[in-house]
C-alpha cells in the first residue's frame, strides 16, 4: 500500500512539473538577434521593389507616361484609400533597428546610412500623403501603437537636418557589410546623401528660401560631394537570378501585368517628334500595325479598344531579368535640379545651360543610348523661355519612382499632364494619396487630426510644399 501511495504521488509531481517549459517554448526556428549587416539588404531590396512597383504602375499613370488599357480606375482618378507607400513603415522598422544598433556600437557609417534611408523613405511618404507619422513612428516596441501625424513642414525640417548630420558622420576610410546598393563605398553614400539633399531643398523651394543652404552644398565638393557621373547613381541593379529579380521581370512578374500599362501619346509623340533614340530602347511598336501609337491618358474604358493597336513597353525589359533597375536618384536628375536652381537664381554657379546639357547627356548614357550629335543644338536646345527643361527632365525621370509626379506638383510642368476625357475627380489631377482605410480603425484620433489640418482626406488637397 505504501508503495502504491508513493507511486501516485510521483505521478502527481510529474504532472505538475513545469521546469522544462522554458526549453519547450524556445523558438529555435529563427534568430533572436539580427545585426545591421543582415537587416540592410532587406531594407534596400524592399525599397527597390517598392520603387519598381510604384514606377511601373502608379508612377507611369499619374505622370502620364502610360495608361492602363483595362481596369483603368487609376487613370480616370477613381481613387480610394491607398496603402501603397504606407508599407514603407515596415521597412523603416528595420532602418530604425539598424540606427539603434549602430549608435549603441558607435558605428558611424551604419548610423549615417540609416539616416539617409530614413530621410529618403520619409520624403516619399510625406510627398505622397502630406502629414504622416514621423516623430512617434516605429516605436511600437516602446508602446506607441497609434502614432501622431506630424506636419510636413516639421518633417522636412527634421529630415534635412538628418541629411546634414549623416553627411558629417560618413567615414570614407571604412566600409560596411550588407550594402547591396553601393557595395560598401561610403563616398557614394555621401554623394547620394547630398544629392538627395539638393532634391529635397528644391522640393520646398516654393515655400522656403533655400538659396543659402543649397549654395553651401553645391559650392563645396569636398565637404559635400555630389554625384559626378552615372557611376554614382543611386540605383539598385537586380542580378536577375531568382530571387533577386524585380517584380516586373520575367521569372517574378507576369507578362500580363508588364503590358497592362501602355505608353501614352505624350511619351510616344515626344520621342517620335524629337527622333529621340530612347524611343527604341523603351518602346516596341504596336502588334497590329507595327507603328508607334500611344494611348491617350484618361480615356473612358469603353473607348480604349484593343491593346494590340497600341505601342507596347519594350519586351527586352521584361524578358531580360537583369535589365530592370530600381532607380532612386540619378546624376541626370541632379543636373536638372541645378539647372533649374540656376535659372531661378537660387544658386550662383556655372550656367543653367551647362547643367541642362550635362543632364540630358547623362540621361542618354544612363539608358545606354547614343545621343544624336545635334540633339542639344537642334532638337532640344536649352531655352528658358519654353518648357524644354521640364520636358527633358520628365523624359529623364522615366521609371524613377514617382519623382515626376512630385515635380509636376511643384512646377505644374510638363504642362501636357492634364485630366483626360474620361477623368472623374471634377477634372483635376490628384495631388495626394488617400490615407489607408485601416488607419481609421486603428489610429482614428490622430488620423482625424491630420485630415483636418489639410482640409479633408481627399486626393486634391495640396501638401505643404505644394503651393503651385
Amino acid at each position, binding site marked *: 500500500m505504501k508503495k502504491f501511495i508513493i507511486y*501516485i504521488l510521483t505521478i502527481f509531481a510529474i504532472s505538475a512539473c513545469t521546469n522544462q517549459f522554458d526549453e519547450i517554448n524556445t523558438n529555435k526556428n529563427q534568430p533572436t538577434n*539580427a545585426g545591421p549587416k543582415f537587416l540592410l539588404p532587406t531594407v534596400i531590396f524592399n525599397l527597390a521593389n517598392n520603387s519598381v512597383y510604384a514606377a511601373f504602375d502608379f508612377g507611369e499613370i499619374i505622370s502620364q507616361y502610360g495608361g492602363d488599357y483595362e481596369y483603368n480606375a487609376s487613370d480616370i482618378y477613381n481613387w480610394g484609400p491607398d496603402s501603397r507607400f504606407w508599407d514603407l513603415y515596415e521597412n523603416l522598422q528595420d532602418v530604425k533597428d539598424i540606427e539603434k544598433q549602430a549608435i549603441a556600437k558607435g558605428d558611424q557609417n551604419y548610423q549615417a546610412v540609416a539616416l539617409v534611408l530614413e530621410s529618403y523613405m520619409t520624403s516619399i511618404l510625406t510627398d505622397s500623403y502630406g502629414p504622416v507619422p514621423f516623430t512617434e513612428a516605429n516605436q511600437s516596441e516602446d508602446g506607441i501603437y497609434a502614432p501622431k501625424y506630424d506636419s510636413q513642414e516639421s518633417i522636412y525640417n527634421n529630415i534635412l537636418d538628418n541629411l546634414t548630420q549623416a553627411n558629417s558622420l560618413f567615414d570614407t576610410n571604412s566600409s560596411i557589410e550588407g550594402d547591396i546598393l553601393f557595395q560598401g563605398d561610403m563616398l557614394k553614400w555621401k554623394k547620394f546623401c547630398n544629392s538627395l539633399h539638393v532634391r529635397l531643398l528644391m522640393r520646398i523651394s516654393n515655400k522656403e528660401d533655400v538659396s543659402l543652404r543649397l549654395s553651401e552644398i553645391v559650392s563645396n565638393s569636398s565637404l559635400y560631394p555630389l554625384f559626378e557621373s552615372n557611376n554614382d547613381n543611386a540605383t539598385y541593379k537586380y542580378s536577375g537570378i531568382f*530571387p533577386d529579380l524585380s517584380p516586373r521581370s520575367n521569372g517574378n512578374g507576369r507578362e500580363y501585368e508588364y503590358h497592362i500599362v501602355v505608353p501614352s501619346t505624350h511619351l510616344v509623340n515626344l520621342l517620335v517628334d524629337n527622333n529621340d533614340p530612347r524611343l527604341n530602347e523603351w518602346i516596341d511598336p504596336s502588334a497590329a500595325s507595327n507603328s508607334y501609337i500611344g494611348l491617350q491618358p484618361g480615356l473612358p*474604358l469603353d473607348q480604349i479598344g484593343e491593346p494590340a493597336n497600341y505601342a507596347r513597353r519594350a519586351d527586352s525589359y521584361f524578358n531580360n531579368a537583369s535589365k530592370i533597375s530600381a532607380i532612386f536618384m540619378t546624376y541626370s536628375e541632379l543636373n536638372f535640379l541645378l539647372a533649374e536652381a540656376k535659372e531661378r537664381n537660387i544658386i550662383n554657379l556655372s550656367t543653367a545651360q551647362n547643367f541642362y546639357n550635362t543632364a540630358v547627356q547623362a540621361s542618354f548614357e544612363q539608358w545606354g543610348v547614343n545621343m544624336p550629335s545635334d540633339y542639344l543644338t537642334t532638337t532640344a536646345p536649352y531655352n528658358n523661355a519654353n518648357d524644354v527643361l521640364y520636358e527633358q527632365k520628365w523624359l529623364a525621370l522615366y521609371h524613377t519612382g514617382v519623382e515626376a509626379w512630385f515635380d509636376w506638383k511643384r512646377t505644374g510642368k510638363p504642362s501636357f499632364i492634364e485630366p483626360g476625357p474620361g477623368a472623374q475627380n471634377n477634372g483635376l489631377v490628384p495631388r495626394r494619396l488617400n490615407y489607408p482605410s485601416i488607419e481609421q480603425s486603428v489610429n482614428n484620433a490622430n488620423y482625424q487630426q491630420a485630415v483636418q489640418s489639410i482640409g479633408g482626406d481627399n486626393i486634391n488637397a495640396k501638401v505643404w510644399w505644394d503651393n503651385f
Partner: protein
Amino acid sequence: MKKQKNLLILFFSLLFHFLNAQEIEVKGKITDQNGQPLPGVSVVVKNTANGVQSDFDGNYVIKAEKGQTLNFSYMGYNPKDVLVAAQSNINVTLEEATQSLKEVVVTALGITRDKRALGYSTQEINSKDLNKVNSTNFVSNLSGKIAGVQVTGSGNGLTSSSRIVIRGESSLNINNNGPLFVVDGIPINNSVYGVGGGPTNQADLPTDYGNGAAEINQEDIESVNVLKGAAASALYGSRAANGVILITTKSGKKQKGLGVSFSSSTMFSSPLKLWDVQNKYGAGSHLTYSPGADTNLGPRLDGTTTVVQNGSPGYYLGQAEPLPLIFRYNLKDFFQTGKTLQNTLSVNGATDKSTYRLSYTNSNSNGIVPNTNLIRNDVSLKASYEINSKWKINSSVNYILSNSDNALVTGYGSQGIMYNLIWNHTNVDLNWLRDYWITKDVEQNSMFSWGDNIFKIANENINAFRKKRVLGNISSVYNFNENLSLLTRIGIDNSGDFRWSRRPLGSSRYPKGMYREQNIDFSEINTDFLLSYDKTFGDFTTKFSVGGNRMDQFTSKSFIEGDGLSIPGIYNLQNINVTPSMSRNDYKKRINSLYSFANIGYKNYLFVDVTARNDWSSTLPKGNNSYFYPSVSLSFIPTSVFNLGDEVDYLKLRLNAASVGNDTDPYRLEKTYNNGTLPGSLTNPKVILNNNLKPEILTSYEAGLEAFLFKKRVSFEATYFISNSKNQIIGLNISEASGMEYHYINAGKIKNQGVELSLGIIPVKKKEMEWSVNANFSKNNSKVIELTPGIDNYVIAKGPNGGTIEARVGGRMGDIYGLGYLRSPDGQIVYDNSGSPIVDTNVKRIGNYNPDWMLGLSSNFSYKGFNLFAQFDVRHGGKIYSMTNAIGMESGLLAVSLPGRETGIVGPGVVKNADGTYSPNTTVISAENWYYGNAYRRNNIEANSFDASYVKLRQLSIGYTFSKKIASSLKVQNLSIALVGNNLALWTKVPNIDPESQALNGGTLLPGFEVMQLPSTKNYGFKINVNL
C-alpha cells in the same frame, strides 16, 4: 489426451470451489422481451473486471460472491442490475431501448455514465444512423443531426474541409472555434494545414487538403456523442471549451456466426448546382465580336456571323476554321460523373477473457473534375484482455493511409479551374480545350496569356499528397477492490503528410515551371491516469476521482519550392534550376494537468457533479502559466418522486455552470527575426509580443430539460445556455506606422447565448411498422461586449477584395464588413454623372455569415424489412459574398449580366444635385461600363452578397433488410441493401453557387466568402451490408 485435460480442469475447478467457498457459479439465460435469446450480452460483476459474455443461445456462466451485483448490458437495450443472493440461476430479460432512450452514455475521459445522472447537454448518434450514407469527410456526416452543431462544407473538391462549430463562436481567433475530437478517450488532431496564400493571392493560391478528422472511418464507429458545452468538457481542458465530439469505436462482441461483416458502398457524384450561363451573346465588346476580348459583351449568338474563334482547334497556329457564332458553352463538357467506392471488411469476436475487432476499409474516389481522386486505406485493430479478475487491458491501433494524385487549388487566379471557366467565351465548346499542349510540357494551348487551359490544370497542375497516420492507445484498468480502481492510459496521434505540387513550363503564373514539396509531421501524446473511489452510503451513491494528464505536441513543417525547371516534364528537386525558397520550422507544446471530480447521487433521482481542473501550459509566461477552472452540474428527475400525469413518463431537469481556461500558440513570448527574401537577410517581425499574456477564460451556464411523453412516443429536450469568454489572446491590429502590424494582447469579452430544442415523435409504432420523426432546432446569438480600451474593432480575418470578418463592440461574431453602395438618406443607391453607382468609401457592415437559426428534420419509416430515411437541413439567414457573381458580371458569362446589352442600362436610384437634393438617375450607361468597367464591382461587397438561407436534402436512404429466413438460407446472419444519397437537392435564393462554400486563406477556412469554389456534389448510389 483430451480426457486427461478434462480431468485436470475438473480437478482445478473443484479446487477453486473449495478455496472460494463464498463464490458460487451463477448461470442463466438472457432473452429480449420477445423471448429471443441475446448473444454477446456483457455480464459483469459490478466494480470488478470479472465479466463474461452470453453465448449464441443467450446462456452465460459467471463466478460471483453472494452479495455482489451482476450488471447486464447490451447495446440497444436498457441495462439491468441483479443482486446475487443464494440463487445460482439468474435468467434475465432485457428491454430494447428505442433510439432516443439510450440510457448509457460515454462521457469525458471515456467514462460511461447513465444519462439520467448528467447535468449537461449531450446528444448521441449511433452507428446505424451514422452509417446510413457514406461520405469521404466524417465531419460532413454530422451536419443537421445535432441541435446546436453547425457544419459547413467548403466546395473545394474531394478533399474539401468541413468547418464545425458548436453553439456559436466565442473565440476571436477564427481557427479556435471548433470542438475537440476524441476517439476512444484520446484527443486527435482536426487541424487544417495550409499551403499557399489567400484566396485572391493569384501568385500562390491555396489547396484544401482537408481537416484532420475527415479521415475518421465511419464504419469503425459505434457511437458519436456530442458534448456541447463547457461543463461537459471541463475534464478535457482548454481545447474542449467549444465542445467535444466523443467517438467510440466498435469493440469485439460475442455473436452468432463468424463475426465477419462486409459493407460496400458505391456512390456516383455530379455537380449539385452549376452556373446559370447566358446563351445570348458571345465574345467581344460593344456587340462587336473579338476573339481576344476577355468579355462576352459581343454580338448575338444567332449563328449569323461566321468567325475564327479563340479556343477552337488550330487557333493558336492561326489556322482555325471560321465557325458560326453560336452558343456552345456547357459546363457538363468539363465536369464528369465522379465515383466513390467504399468497402469495409471486419471480423470481430469475443471469448470469456478477451474481445477483438479487426477491420479494413478501402475508399476510392474520383472527383467530378477529371484526374482528381482520393484514396484511403484504413486498418484498425481493437482488443481487450482480462489478465485476471482485477485487471483488464484495452488497446487499439488505427493506421490510416490516404493519398491523392491531384487535389485542386481553390480561389481566384489563373491556376484555378473556375477562374478559367468564368473568363471564357459562350461560343466556345469546352471540348475544344481538351487538346491542351502546343508543345508537350513546354507550351500550353491557352485562350489567354493570363490564364491556363482548364484541362491542363486538371491533368498537369498536380497537387498531390500522401499521408500516413497512426492513432493508438493502450489503457489499463486495475480494480484494487470493489471500490477503488486505477485507470492509466497512453494515446498517440501521429501523422506524416507529404505533399508535392508541380506546374509545367508555360503555366501562366509559373512560366518557367515549378516544383514544390511540403512535409508536415505532427504528433500528440497523451498520458493520463485516473484514480476512482466508488461507494454507496445508504441512499447516496458517490464516486470521487482524481487524475492527471500530460499532453505533448510536436509539429514540424518543412517546405521547399523552386520556380524554375531545367528539363521540361521532369518534376523533382534535382530538376530545379533557380535558387529554391525553403524553410523548416518546429513547434513544441506541453500541457500538464491535474483534475478531480465528485459524482454524488441521491436515490437515483438527484445527482450533483463537481469537477475541478488545473492546467500548466508551456506557451504562457512563467508567472501566468497556470489556470484553474471548475464546474458544477445538477440533475433532478422529478418523475421519480412525483407523478406528473400519465402522459409524462420521464422528466429530467438539469443545470450547470462551468469555466474553461485556454492557453495560446507556442513562441509568443520572445522576439525573433524573420528571413528576408534575399539569402542571408533578416527583417523585423510584424508582431509585437507580450510577456504578460494571461490565460483566456470561458464561463458558461446552462439549463435544460429532457422528457419522454406518451409512453415514450415523444421525446423532447430543451437547453438554454449563456457563455462569456474573456481575456482572449489575439493579435490586435495597430497602426502600421508604428512599424508593426499587430500586437498580442489579452482582450475581448464575447457573450454567446442560445437555445437548442430536440423533438422526437413516433407517430406509428407497431410490431412490423414504425415511423419516427426527429427535429433539431438551434438558435444562438453572440455579442462583442468589449475589445480593449480605446479599440472598437478587430479584424478577425481578411477576406477577398477588401471584405473582412470583424468583431466590433456591440456587434456579433461573424459580422462581415466591406464597401457598399453610397445611398441617399431614403436608402436609394446614388449614381455619378456617368451612370455608375458610387461606392461609399466608408466601410460598412454587410451582414453576418452565421444563420439566424438552423433546423435539422429527419424522418425514418420502416415496414417489415423496408426502411425509408430522409434528412433535411434548413439554415435560415446569414450572408455570403459571392465572387463568382461579381466576376460573372464582369465577364458577361452569367445570366445576371444580360440586362441592357443593346439598350444600355439606367441604374435604379438617384443622383445628387449640386444643391444637395436628389433626383432620379436617368443616365444611360453602356453595358461595357456597367458590367466590365464598373471598377469597384468586385470590391463592392454589398453588391455581391446574398441571403445565404437554404434547405438541403442532406441524406436519403431507401433500404431493405432481408428476413432472418432468407438470410439463413443464404448462410448469412444478416443482409441488407439500400439506395442512398446525400446532398441531393438544394433550395436557395443564392444565384449560381451553393451557399455552403468557403474560401481558404492558407490554412484558415473563411466562412461567408465564396471565391470561385468548385461546385459541390450530389452523391447517390447503393450500399450493401452483410454479416456472416
